[in-house]
């Protein structure tokens, strides 16, 4: 709570600095705005930045290290009996102290040493926040004073402010990049730990997937087999079914909407299609599991086929429906990017509308359409919820769409649901699967974007 008060005070100081800086600029210019290097507002921003940024940095720095330093001081004050404890137990004691200090537990249940330590903890905390408060306010005021002194007619406040904004924008953009990098690296390192336990070739080429490892050596049937081929095959099967549904339907939709549909129909049906894209995948999932799967089984049985109640077909078809808007909107973009002059050229030669579409527009838009389809494939491979609910969990190595299969994403979910030990191959297998998934979708996306970009350059 104190932090919020501090932040509020700092914000108020910053705002005041802005007005003071602007006023100062006007004063040094003698009221003649044209004499200033920059507009008065920039001097205001300049002073506000000097007030806010150093103080904010110190605040963040302080908060980041405060708990560690305070804990260190508290630990050293403890009797030797505690400091010689192993690290994990020491952490438990420390937790107890912090909880006691924050009055989360009552003092009656703990020893006197811990009560004393909690008091010390509270004292240090009070001193620390007082120090922080003083430091931040001083820095803010000091920064503002420094900037105030530096404001003069020749000063290039605009350049400095804009440079600061530029740096701020750069930091924002790198946050996303570094987060992605962090995810990739963590997946990579955990996967490497997995591959120390299970050889890479066993994982990529093994035909049996049974990740339950034995907790006790006398357990039966929990040997743990990490051959991921059934998962890859299942993913491929579901994705192929999905694309068989989505690619033609999406493409035909795009052709109709962009070439044939009247503006009125187009204006109504495009938003409707986009609603399809807005349905949460979990809703598609139970639609697949509770409506489509029984339907598929009913039809199959009436034809005398044996159909699993959780089939690749049901999951694939529903997933295909889900990615129709994806394919159709990307294809629509590609078709609309074909210049009108090409259509005119074909019409002027006496081509009919369908000839123009088949022989000129689709070939010209094909790279863009292919890029869109590839993006849709990577979406299908990464899709989780529908297959979790409708495709089943059994790692069958089969090409029969009527049987239940499982996919990479489903297995990642099942491996990580429930209680985990973080050094068993069962848990780490999820990272290996994630790495494969990431590599495949990244490759597909790179290819797709390359194709789309190459195609865009052709007309612009």
């Amino acid at each position: 709570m104190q932090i919020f008060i501090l932040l509020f005070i700092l914000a108020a100081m910053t705002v005041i600095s802005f007005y003071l800086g602007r006023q100062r600029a006007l004063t040094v210019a003698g009221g003649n705005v044209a004499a200033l290097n920059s507009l008065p507002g920039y001097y205001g921003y300049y002073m506000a930045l000097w007030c806010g940024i150093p103080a904010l940095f110190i605040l963040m720095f302080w908060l980041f290290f405060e708990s560690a330093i305070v804990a260190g001081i508290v630990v050293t004050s403890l009797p030797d009996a505690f400091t010689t404890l192993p690290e994990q137990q020491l952490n438990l004691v420390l937790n107890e102290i912090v909880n006691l200090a924050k009055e989360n537990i009552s003092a009656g249940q703990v020893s006197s040493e811990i009560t004393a330590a909690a008091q010390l903890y509270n004292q240090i905390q009070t001193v620390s926040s007082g120090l922080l408060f003083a430091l931040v306010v001083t820095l803010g005021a000091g920064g503002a004073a420094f900037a105030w002194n530096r404001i003069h007619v020749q000063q290039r406040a605009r350049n400095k402010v804009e440079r600061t904004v530029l740096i701020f924008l750069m930091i924002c953009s790198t946050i996303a990049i570094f987060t992605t990098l962090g995810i990739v690296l963590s997946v990579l390192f955990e996967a490497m730990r997995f591959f120390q336990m299970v050889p890479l070739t066993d994982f990529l080429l093994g035909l049996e997937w049974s990740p339950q490892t034995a907790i006790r050596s006398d357990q039966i049937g929990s040997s743990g087999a990490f051959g991921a081929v059934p998962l890859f095959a299942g993913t491929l099967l579901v994705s192929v079914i999905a694309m068989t549904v989505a690619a033609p339907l999406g493409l035909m939709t795009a052709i109709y909407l962009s070439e044939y549909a009247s503006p009125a129909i187009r204006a109504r049906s495009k938003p409707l299609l986009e609603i399809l894209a807005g349905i949460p995948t979990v809703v598609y999932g139970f639609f697949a599991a509770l409506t489509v799967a029984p339907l598929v089984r009913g039809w199959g049985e009436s034809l005398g086929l044996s159909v699993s109640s959780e089939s690749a077909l049901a999951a694939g078809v529903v997933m295909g429906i889900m990615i129709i808007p994806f394919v159709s909107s990307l294809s629509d973009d590609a078709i609309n990017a074909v210049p009108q002059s090409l259509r005119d050229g074909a019409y002027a030669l006496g081509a009919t509308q369908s000839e123009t579409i088949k022989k000129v527009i689709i070939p010209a838009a094909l790279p863009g359409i292919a890029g869109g389809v590839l993006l849709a494939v990577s979406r299908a491979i990464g899709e989780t919820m529908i297959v979790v609910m409708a495709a089943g969990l059994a790692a069958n190595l089969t090409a029969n769409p009527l049987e239940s299969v499982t996919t990479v994403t489903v297995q990642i979910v099942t491996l990580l649901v429930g209680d985990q030990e973080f050094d068993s191959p069962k848990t780490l297998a999820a990272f290996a699967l994630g790495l494969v998934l990431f590599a495949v979708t990244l490759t597909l996306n790179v290819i797709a974007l390359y194709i789309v970009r190459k195609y865009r350059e052709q007309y612009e």
Partner: protein
Amino acid sequence: MSTVLEKPLNFSSERRRGERRKHARAAASSATVPREDRQTVGAAVVENPRIRCTDINVHYGSKHAVKNVTLDIGQHEVMAMIGPSGCGKSTFLRCLNRMNDTIDNCRITGDIWLDGLNVNDRAIDVVPLRAKVGMVFQKPNPFPKSIYENIAFGPRIHGLARNKTDLDEIVVNSLQNAGLWQEVKDQLDQLGTSLSGGQQQRLCIARAIAVNPEVILMDEPCSALDPIATAVIENLMSELCAEYSIVIVTHSMQQAARVSHRTAYFHLGDLIEVGTTESVFMNPLHQLTEDYITGRFG
């Protein structure tokens, strides 16, 4: 043959241009039709025309883009249409092969007769019409296919070739007639879009020729080209008019004077004056025409 000049005019030398101004001033002192009068003057009608347009009106929604235009296109002549931007000349040109069909809320009335066929009759099939009346656009628009496929597109959709040999022959002839054969004969499988702008435009002309049209419409065919490529296309036009009637919309009066036999001047949707290119440029009958060609307007 309609009234055709022996040789298109040549205004290349300064001296001639000076003379023309003198002529124009002389004409102005004589009685020209006043600016307010929007009746077509000159010879809009010729004997035995290729295309005869009567009372063409075009509306885009509430905009009256072409007003009561009556105009003949003669056989084997190059007809130039000039006039300031937005005067309806391109719109009129696009009526001749029904390209305005692709524009919503465009309404065309009047008759356009071509070989006993009323082009503007909604009931006719535009596919054979557009094979008869080819079109070349302002910006070269080759298909993103090979040079060969660009030319073969038209004959294929109209079924003009019985076999591959026929098709090859059509492609070669079209490229030869468009003056492009020597430059591309070794690279027929390259993309049409990889050619230079002038070559692309000649490819588009070859593509139009390939379906054996009677009339070729050209909508500012040289405005995206450099002067050398323009000169090549202009020479080509004077060769092509031996076989085809050519209607060209142009913003360049010099170009109209160089390539055309007859010239039509459009002004805000009205056809103001039609006549032989010589008479329109040397001795304009209408004050608006004179204003335009002497550069006082537009």
